[in-house]
């Protein structure tokens, strides 16, 4: 469980202060895949970095706190202060464009050894790693390759292998499939889902593709302008979206074979795509487990 209490994360740029995450209060339960959606600049990646404990200048925590129910390697509960020691032990991070995050000048097998939480017995690590990448659908030769010799999809599998090798309790995946084409994307997403079921851990997936969220996640968090617009079960969000921004995100996804939408989409996206929304800072529980930011009733659209 991760509890965010009135969390405000800001960036200090020159004399200006920008609140990228602006007062977020919510609880993320254990053992589920939670999707985070919203457009660029809505604070998704900042929130993920904060949860990961990677708060570095010019980014800082200006208000609120994050509580984890994770247990550290030493058996003590993890706090915001000690979380860095748990990186790649009890939590891991698959960064944006992560397939380019592998060290380009060493082989894949060395990346497993040259790794913060790695065992000191290299041989044992390598044996386990070889068996493990096989399970993730990578050929054994991949271990002896350099990153540039692998395709984008294979590199992404290696990143997922590295991030899940230690069976972390929490995995944060920031746009794990953006640079991949649909066929490979499906393979990678199915792999993540299978791993989550086997390990029973929590995965936070950032994506701007609502189709990906529908396929993969159990709960969803919609962000807009640094605030949470809507939070609840994925099925509930798709079947009964409460906030106009959520509705627009869902409607902006064209569907193949559904010709009735062709006309509707043209009108809503053309006129509505550029509009701004007002997001109130406080969430209201409209149904059990389904939260919406709604201040003035139905005043969601601000011109």
């Amino acid at each position, binding site marked *: *469980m991760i509890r965010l209490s009135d969390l405000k994360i800001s960036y200090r740029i020159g004399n200006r202060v920008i609140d990228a995450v602006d007062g977020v209060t919510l609880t993320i*339960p*254990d*053992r*589920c*895949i939670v999707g985070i959606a919203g*457009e*660029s600049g809505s604070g998704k990646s900042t929130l993920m970095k904060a949860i990961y404990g990677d708060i570095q200048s010019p980014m800082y925590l200006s208000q609120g706190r994050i509580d984890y129910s994770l247990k550290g390697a030493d058996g003590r509960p993890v706090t915001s202060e000690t979380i860095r020691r748990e990186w790649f032990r009890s939590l891991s991070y698959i960064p944006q464009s992560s397939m380019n995050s592998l060290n380009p000048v060493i082989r894949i097998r060395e990346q497993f050894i040259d790794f913060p939480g790695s065992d000191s017995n290299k041989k044992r690590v390598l044996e386990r790693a070889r068996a493990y990448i096989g399970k993730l659908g990578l050929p054994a030769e991949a271990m002896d390759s350099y990153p540039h010799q692998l395709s*984008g999809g294979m590199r992404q599998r290696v990143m997922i292998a590295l991030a899940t090798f230690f069976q972390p309790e929490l995995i944060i995946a920031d746009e794990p499939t953006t640079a*991949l*084409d*649909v*066929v*490979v*994307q*499906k393979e990678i*997403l*199915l792999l993540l*889902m299978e791993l989550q*079921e086997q390990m029973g851990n929590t995965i936070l997936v950032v994506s*701007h*593709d*609502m*189709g*990906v969220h*529908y*396929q*993969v996640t*159990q*709960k969803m968090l919609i962000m807009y302008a640094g605030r949470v617009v809507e939070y609840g*079960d*994925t099925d509930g969000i*798709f079947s009964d979206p409460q906030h106009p921004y959520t509705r*627009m*995100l*869902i409607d*902006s*996804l*064209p*569907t*193949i*074979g559904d010709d009735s939408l*062709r006309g509707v*989409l*043209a009108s809503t*996206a*053309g006129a509505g*795509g*550029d509009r701004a929304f007002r997001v109130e800072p406080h969430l209201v529980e409209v149904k059990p487990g389904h939260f919406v930011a709604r201040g003035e009733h139905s005043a969601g659209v601000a011109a």
Partner: protein
Amino acid sequence: MTLILKTEGLNKVYRQGGLVRARQVHALRDVNITVESDRPVVIAVVGESGSGKTTLAKTLLRLETPTSGHAIVYDRVVAGKGATPTRREFLGLVQPIFQNPFEAFSRYRPVDAYLHETARRVAGMDESQAEAAVAHALDSVGLNYGEVRGKYTSQFSGGELQRISVARALIPQPRLIVADEPVSMIDASRRMIIINLFKRLRDEQGRSFLYITHDLATAYYISDFIAVMNKGQVVEFGVAREVMSNPQHAYTRLLLDSIPTTNSRWRPRALAAG
């Protein structure tokens, strides 16, 4: 019927590696597409990365010369053997829109300078004509010249910049606009603005588009014809609706099957805890 686009035996072979261990990469393998229609069309080219989509676009834009074969746009041979138009004539016929609008324009020049340059150099207008053409082009993409003038790329959103790219491409009144992944750098919620803009320009201004994308959903939504590419070959080509509703090639079916839709789930999921 007007011949909008025709490629005949288009091949492109890249050489990779050194002198000794050179390897040949067939980016385009015997690509034959013919699009004839009475009215302007949107032709979508879909396929995974490395399938040759961008090479096809670059060949049609004359940024790459084909190894063999040629391409015809509106009855004129534009690429390959027998390509006649001069550079200026060509740019008045075919115009590009690129993937990343932040890279298409320099950070150190106001964006409207590019529009002016296109008007003067490609369309051969004088200063006052150019001024009017820029204003008109910006107006047709839903932007106001007064709000664009003198501004730099950092002062626009990706969607706005891409609309400016479209406006720039419109200035020489081209018949065909080649758009290589024009929406992949834009927020999902704003993509449809660009897509719908293409549709409007097709219907109201008579521009045809070659829309290169890996997003089958938008391709289905906007295109009249669709070409599915895999490993340099066009594996399936035809009227978009027919191809998408009744795919014949296994690769097209695989592509369609891999789209994350909200209609049905790939696999059942465990219920959310808590």
